[in-house]
């Protein structure tokens, strides 16, 4: 039984509508947990989502959690202290990873020197295996250098871990600039440093933004290094604060407060994500291609 052309058209149209319906639903799935988080943060009930209130955000005024409870208020650090630590970690990671990989990526991309293949290969291999395998040794090194329990130690370890990806992505961007453009700059009268600053670097700016964004968010969300290397609660970042609240009795008693803290912690991530999503995609593709 063959279909008339109008029946075929209707069939195709319904199939397309179905396709789009499925696509929209699928696209919304990962956003649901996020929406639930926000709902819980504004919930009147400490455990279930009910109603709307701003009461859970009381901590924003002074940063002190549990101001009325003598025991709890001493257990947990000031929210703003943790937030500051988080910011320092994120900024430190961003600045150094971006700076170092902009330079290293350029040299590896444009210069031939002995050991270049070996160096590149090493970065590739390191990039494939995550940082978790190095935790034990890093702990030892930090303890021996006196950097254990310091934010500086964590920053240094974080930079090291994010650097291979940064070098690979930026190298890819440098590779994409035609040789002629750089030769033209040299012939026009720039030395190699001049060619780098005036021509090459401006042309890889998208790559620089991508790595800056990536390393900032990477530092902002870092947990394992803090959990492992930091012992004093005043050195905690937000991630550690939230996790320790969650795993304590508070996790069962007052989830809404934790949700509110999470929203506070999350806002910069969401803002940066909305504005920089396409840069993050560049990093993802660049990272896997390498």
């Amino acid at each position, binding site marked *: 039984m063959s279909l008339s052309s109008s029946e075929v058209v209707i069939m195709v149209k319904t199939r397309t509508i179905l396709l789009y319906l499925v696509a929209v639903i699928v696209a919304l799935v990962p956003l649901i947990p996020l929406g639930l988080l926000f709902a819980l943060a504004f919930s009147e009930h400490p455990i279930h989502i009910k109603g709307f209130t701003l009461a859970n955000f009381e901590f924003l005024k002074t940063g002190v959690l549990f101001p009325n409870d003598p025991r709890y208020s001493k257990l947990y650090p000031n929210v703003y202290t943790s937030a500051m630590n988080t910011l320092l970690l994120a900024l430190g990671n961003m600045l150094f990873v971006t700076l170092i990989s902009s330079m290293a990526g350029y040299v590896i991309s444009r210069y031939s020197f002995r050991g270049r293949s070996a160096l590149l290969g090493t970065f590739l291999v390191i990039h494939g295996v995550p940082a978790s395998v190095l935790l034990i040794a890093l702990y030892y090194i930090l303890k021996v250098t006196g950097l254990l329990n310091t934010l500086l130690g964590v920053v240094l370890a974080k930079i090291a871990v994010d650097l291979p990806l940064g070098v690979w992505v930026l190298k890819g961007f440098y590779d994409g600039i*035609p040789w002629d*453009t750089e*030769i*033209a700059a*040299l*012939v026009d*009268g720039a030395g190699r440093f001049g060619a780098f600053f005036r021509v090459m670097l401006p042309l890889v700016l998208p790559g620089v933004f991508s790595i800056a964004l990536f390393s900032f968010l990477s530092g902002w969300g870092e947990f394992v290094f803090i959990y492992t290397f930091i012992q004093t609660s005043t050195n905690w970042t937000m991630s550690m604060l939230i996790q320790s609240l969650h795993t304590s009795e508070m996790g069962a008693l007052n989830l809404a407060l934790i949700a509110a803290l999470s929203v506070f912690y999350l806002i910069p991530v969401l803002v940066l994500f909305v504005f920089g999503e396409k840069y993050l995609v560049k990093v993802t593709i660049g990272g896997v291609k390498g």
Partner: protein
Amino acid sequence: MRVRLENVTKVFRGGVEAVRDLNLEVKNGEFIVLLGPSGCGKTTTLLMIAGVYKPTRGYIYFDDQVVNDLEPKDRNIGMVFQSYALYPHMSVYENIAFPLKLKKLPKEEIDRKVKEVASMLRIDNLLNRHPRQLSGGQQQRVALARAIVKEPSLFLMDEPLSNLDAKIRVEVRAELKRLQKDLGITTIYVTHDQAEALSLADRIAVLNEGVLQQVGTPDELYNKPLNTFVAGFIGAPAANIIDASIVEEKEALYFEMLGARFPAPKDYAEVLRNEAKVYFMARPEDVRITEGKGFTIYSIEWLGREAFAHVKAPDGTLLRVTLPAEFKLTVGQEVGVTFNYAKTHVYKSTGELII
């Protein structure tokens, strides 16, 4: 400025020999073209003159001064690339001003020079645009402007016309030649297009696989190619280079080729008596169709001003022949063939010119 290359050789990492023992003298104000197929070493030579590559052996002289170790920025050269290599993040004005800014000239002087060059090349209305907003031809003028504005002693051009539409290319060619004559700057130009070389150059240097084949004026290269490579490379349609044997019979010399026998003229006979296998070279316009047998017209292309035919020889070889526009031949017709021996050449089996 004069440029001299002395025994210049370039070997790359991995043993690739791109240029071998190149000796070349470029006169002041001359427009010399480095011509050859891809991979012949012409761009490598250009980049060595620019200072981007360092010769593995040999010396490069600018006006009697050895410049092997001089950085590109100190060589006072202007360079134009096939891809134009304009800085995408700068406006046209900034692109042209870039070399002057690097020289740290005062702002008013930079402004004056940029505007001067822009009007010379008729791009003064494009100064505020960015390269991606320009057409190919416009980008090329900007690239030229950038090279000219620093008043260099030497122009280096790497196939600057290859990316242009065929129609514009012919016009720009003429303009480029005029510009060079007006400015009087020594120019070294690289291309693989022999027609371009013939029309632009004061002299041409033909390169193949890193080795210089011949240097001379277009006329010399066309009418007296020194080896079979140059003979086959210069001129379009390509010259016929035919395998031939020298045969002596009763004190007279004959060419045995194409499955037929051709008597050799007196001046050839004197020089060729001791040769056995040679190459006979005849350009399409030096092949004459006569009444006769053995040869067949294989195909005819009518081109308006003249006609171009393939003629099949008794041994199956196809000869390239140009015919006057008012020819009276048909495809399949049997003809005879002879040559204008005043213009033909004979080469050794190793390729060098005998006569």
